[in-house]
């Protein structure tokens, strides 16, 4: 049995920008943990707020997509590797990051998919969906961290 996921919440701590609350969560490279991680983060990102259904949906879908990419493509489901989520919360925005232990991928492969893949393809929609639902999407230079900005209300 795996250990339960544990959240770490910091209010304007040294790693969080002034006025923000940072919520951190680490999880193993196990797709069965995605649902729990998404619900934990959603609960904390909207703590004390009544989010509109649309915003909560966008957060759940984009986070599930990013975790799926990190576990399957970044860490290749290696149980010895972890995935880290961070949410930086201001009064109006959520800046979410997902980092894996992979080598990252070629930035050119992160180019903006303006169109969804062929209808009959079973994969390839993840990044398209993230870019469609998040207000802003960025990657670090290595390509193993994605940043997604969403409204908080």
């Amino acid at each position: 049995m795996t250990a339960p996921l544990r959240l770490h919440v910091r209010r304007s701590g040294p790693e969080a920008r002034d006025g923000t609350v940072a919520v951190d969560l680490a999880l193993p490279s196990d797709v069965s943990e995605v649902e729990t991680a998404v619900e934990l983060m959603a609960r904390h990102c909207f703590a004390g707020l009544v989010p509109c259904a649309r915003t909560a949906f966008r957060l759940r879908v984009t986070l599930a997509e990013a975790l799926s990419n990190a576990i399957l493509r970044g860490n290749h489901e290696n149980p010895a590797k972890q995935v880290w989520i961070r949410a930086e919360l201001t009064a109006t925005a959520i800046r979410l990051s997902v980092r894996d232990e992979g080598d990252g991928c070629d930035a050119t492969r992160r180019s903006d998919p303006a169109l969804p893949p062929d209808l009959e393809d079973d994969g390839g929609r993840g990044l398209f969906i993230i870019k469609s639902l998040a207000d802003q999407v960025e990657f670090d230079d290595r390509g193993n961290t994605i940043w997604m900005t969403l409204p908080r209300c």
Partner: protein
Amino acid sequence: MGFSKTTSGRGVTVVKVEGQLIVGNRQELKALIQEAMEAGDRKFLVDCTQTAYIDSSGLGALVTISKKIRENGGELRLAGLNEDLRSLFELTKLDSLFHIAPSLDEALQGF
């Protein structure tokens, strides 16, 4: 949370998706429908009235399942999607691949 399978009076296998259809549980849905196909079922209705969200892995699973069902002379329909789910299918153009009905009753008509 999870999947439950019932059979309607019209001989349609109704699979209810409660909670979410995502990377962590998509194989379970594939296995459930595969098992029903092997038992001879050909008409499937995925009931999304209690579905909160679906990710690209879940969408991919539905595409794969639908393809297999069609290859076996059957059909898969979806019903009861909330506004957000409906917009996700429109965004990915998958609304043109699936028969999506507003309600279970409407999906079952003419099936």
